[in-house]
């Protein structure tokens, strides 16, 4: 039971359907909560120390407690599962959605009970065709078994595609059938959310934790971790490593263990240069940070972030500037276009990086990039997309300065694989 979220997921690629799920003890947490008051469920989750797995690491219980309760609260209240996984390098939610859709539904039932939500949406990436199919099937099964349809209605909503839809307030606009630009915060979604009603939004992995916490208690849950924050975490590694993949491991597993043990180390002929610890919007880490436990608190302590916990490894054969260009082009394209720094700043950044890859980089450009890395950071923009884009840029500039200079001197990209179109 040290892999509560993924331990049962089949290795043949098939999902766990309702009968098997029930046999494995599925939906048992519903009888646990049926003996509890909603507020007590919230308190339990709060005490469990569960932190949101969507990237920002906000206490789940804290968010649940922010939803207005009692008769005066506006209704209907909405629960939304953020399954928009589109952060480059992130591939953890797909596993949970495709492998064990009922676990998510059960988690959502727990959360909906705690906040007295009557309608739930699973906002899932449009490209996750298999996940969508399986979620729809599982929701149908849950209805037929009476788990859904009594106090909670649930809909699967495929996104029309945009990274910004993962930002929770933009997601609400997308769900309402509007342009998915983020909303002003405050007010926060628990108070005023989708269609003006109280709304709680949580990541897939976050929600999947809930049944297990209810079933086994908070002591058990805390003991799963070897880091500061509680529970397990789905980590992943991609890049030129021997065994790229995703694993559910104790929270606080070090980056080195992930890289060297679980991913099997670098592929032959490739050397480690740096990594992004948790998706595209995190800082580059060099070798010196590899022993950091990958949890929210430990990474924050050294002034960086774990993000989604799915790391991307940069090797010595790959152009770091090409990698930055790929990242920043993504952010530029996916900028919603609402605020100026992100909309116009990121396209400038992408233009410069692309110039470097063409062999047209100039020294003054480095200063421009540095300026942008600073300006796109927290506090300048309307939402967290641009600060996300600034993270790899700022650290990339710091760690790969000589690579930039080499591109200028050689008037071309010295690497074989480059990205300049």
């Amino acid at each position: 039971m040290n892999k509560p979220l993924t331990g049962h997921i089949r290795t043949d690629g098939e999902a766990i359907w309702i009968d098997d799920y029930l046999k494995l003890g599925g939906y048992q947490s519903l009888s646990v909560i049926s003996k509890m008051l909603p507020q007590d469920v919230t308190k339990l989750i709060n005490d469990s120390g569960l932190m949101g797995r969507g990237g920002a690491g906000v206490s789940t219980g804290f968010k649940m407690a922010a939803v207005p309760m009692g008769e005066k609260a506006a209704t209907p209240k909405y629960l939304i599962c953020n399954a928009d996984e589109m952060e480059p390098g992130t591939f953890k939610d797909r596993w949970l959605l495709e492998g064990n859709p009922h676990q998510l539904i059960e988690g959502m039932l727990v959360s909906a009970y705690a906040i007295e939500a009557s309608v739930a949406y699973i906002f899932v990436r449009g490209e996750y065709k298999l996940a969508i199919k399986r979620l729809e099937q599982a929701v149908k099964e849950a209805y037929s078994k009476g788990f859904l349809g009594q106090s909670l209605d649930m809909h699967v909503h495929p996104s029309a595609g945009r990274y910004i839809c993962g930002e929770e307030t933009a997601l609400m606009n997308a769900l309402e059938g509007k342009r998915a630009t983020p909303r002003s915060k405050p007010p926060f979604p628990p108070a005023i959310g989708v269609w003006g009603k109280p709304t709680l939004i949580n990541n897939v992995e976050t929600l999947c934790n809930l049944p297990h916490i209810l079933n086994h208690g908070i002591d058990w849950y805390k003991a799963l971790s070897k880091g500061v924050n509680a529970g397990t975490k789905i980590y992943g590694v991609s890049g030129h490593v021997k065994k790229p993949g995703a694993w559910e491991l104790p929270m606080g597993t070090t980056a080195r263990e992930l890289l060297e043990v679980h991913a099997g180390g670098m592929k032959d002929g490739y050397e480690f240069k740096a990594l992004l610890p948790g998706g595209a919007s995190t800082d580059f880490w060099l070798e010196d940070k590899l022993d950091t436990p990958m949890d929210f608190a430990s990474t924050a302590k050294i002034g960086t972030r774990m993000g989604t916990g799915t790391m991307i490894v940069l090797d010595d054969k790959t152009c770091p500037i090409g990698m930055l260009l790929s990242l920043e082009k993504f952010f530029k394209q996916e900028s919603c276009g609402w605020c100026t720094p992100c909309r116009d700043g990121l396209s400038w950044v992408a233009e410069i990086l692309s110039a470097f890859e063409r062999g047209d980089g100039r020294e003054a450009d480095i200063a421009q990039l540095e300026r942008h890395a600073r300006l796109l950071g927290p506090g300048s923009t309307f939402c967290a997309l641009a600060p996300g884009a600034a993270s790899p840029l700022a650290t990339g500039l710091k760690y790969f300065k000589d690579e930039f200079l080499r591109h200028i001197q050689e008037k071309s990209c010295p690497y074989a694989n480059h990205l300049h179109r």
Partner: protein
Amino acid sequence: MPTIFIDNKPYNVQPGQNVLHAAVSHGLNLPYFCWHPALGSAGACRQCAVQHFKDESDTQGRMVMSCMTAATEGSRFSINHPTAKSFRADIIEWMMTNHPHDCPVCDEGGECHLQDMTVMTGHNKRRYRFKKRTFENQDLGPHINHEMNRCITCYRCVRYYRDVAGGEDLHAFSASNKVYFGRFEDGPLDSEFSGNLVEVCPTGVFTDKTFRAYYSRKWDLQTAPSICQNCSLGCNISPGERLGTLRRVQNRFHPEINGYFLCDKGRFGHRFVNEKNQVKVVHPIGPLIKEGLMIGIGSPRASLEANYALRKLVGADNFYDGHTELEHRLLSKIMEILSQHPETASLEDVRNADAVFILGEDLTQTAPMLALSIRQNLYKRAQDGAGTQGIPDWNDLAIRNAQPELPKVVYLAHDIPTKLDPLVTHKISTDLESIQDWIPALKAAKNPVIIAGTSLGSEPLIRMSIELRKMAPQAKLCYVLPAANSFGLMLLKPKSTPLLTHRGETAIVLENNLPLSTLSHLHNIIAIDFLESETTKNATLALGCGSFAETTGSMVNNEGRAQRYYSVFERREQRPESWRILRDLGDFSWQNIDELCAEFAQEFPIFEPFLKQVHNTQFRIDGQKIARQSPEFSGRTSMYTNISLHEQAPLQDPDSPLAYSMEGYHGDMPPDLASSYWRPGWNSVSAFNSLSHATSGVKLKP
């Protein structure tokens, strides 16, 4: 009034304001784009960044967007802090990465908010070395020009057009740095309020196409305060003239009437001033030799002064109404009602009402700004609702998310579909059978407004307005009248236009095109008008007068508010005011408008308070007349060299404290004399934020 500190200086601010609004109201140079006083804050452009300090000892501070920050008692900010200052320069630099360098050929140049803000932040060197992104433009019809490459993506256009004006055919398209503002396909903009885009857009994306056809820079326009002539609401406008043609009309802020906006009729409906078929001016006119009965037919589109002069000439007994008989009957009823219940509603009252009851007016057609005021009203109700959820009035984005459905406070009786229908809670037919259903809401309302009018020619509707008023004494009444000066004309107590039977009568018809049925009874017509009409063609004598744009006079709007408009025109051959023509016909002695008004006030004491308040010809500021031309006005010494090589002396204006000159007073002035907004560094309409927004005009009671 809370006090906030900006760069360590205390400022008193309006309760509930955001820091940006407070700062620009005090005339501080804090640049911004997406905020607009009528649109609230969006936090999109990030231009208005300031440093926010926790307390006096905090010197670091934290950068915030001033438009998204409440100006609460004792809070401390800095505009000059290097962090915020350099960030603002960065923002402009980003905006300019794609902006074309086309100011010299851009219509907005010289009154461009983007130009001003660029200068204000000190951005003057282009470091972006890549290609600019470009767009294709759309044909948006005859009024609005579209030049998308100039867009800085502040979202003001759609926030105005969709959210304020309720237009559905302008939207933001695409995302990233390709966001495009336009229509689904080429075609004229649907909204009756599209023209405000010209003033709302802070750059040259949306400009006035009618102006473009005969363009002049802002500083070369001669402007004066004026009143829109197109309906009875009396919206304040600022017409601009050059070389004897009217070039454009812009909004002139009036807090109780039009506020920041005009309707398209008001903005684009004044081109008749430049029409060629003007009635010839006759000079000189001798006194009229009166033979037999002479009657005068006044006009609801002529000034009070002209109507009074006519009345004086023909005598009170022979002064007839220029309205139709039916209109006269309805107007008399309205005057009677208002004499007993004199509290009329201004547009601001309509914007603030908690319930609006409309009896038989299709407002978008008959009084468009009243329709816009109702839309604004619903937003204000949403603001109130959001306020109870802790959202400040200026946080537009949050308000619209918190109150996804506009409150339902509009009741309408009409038999045809109207553009307001989607906002109406309850619509009934004009037979008023189910009006009972309205009563509970009416009685429960704290400050309702009841709107009726003359457009359907129905007396029962007007009677119903007073019935409703009796049930709800807290309600204010608002009547939509046939023309700009209908109210004023009625105050002169004209007789209803009779079915004239005596063929021998001489009729002086003032600025009015009579129906053929009336015309055919008249044998001998002296017609005074600006443009040729059936009446002037059938007249024995047609005398050309000046349009509103080249004369000075007073009108009374639908709420009974008397206001003066001033000539903006400097024609080489000046066209006379109708009252001067009538003065000559009657051999009266008035040399200027003051002399006429002195007599007028004696005879009609009701106008006394207005005529006391209006700035008479002797009014001076710092001993100077007020300049109609900007200090930068070009070509004064040479603009008429095609006529004469000698520099012509500026035209003298005997009727106002304004001068047809760049010389004269230019600073702060009373609101009814201010015609263009300007402050150092603020050349666009945005200058209005730092001006006093006092109300003007005097409400009269019949």
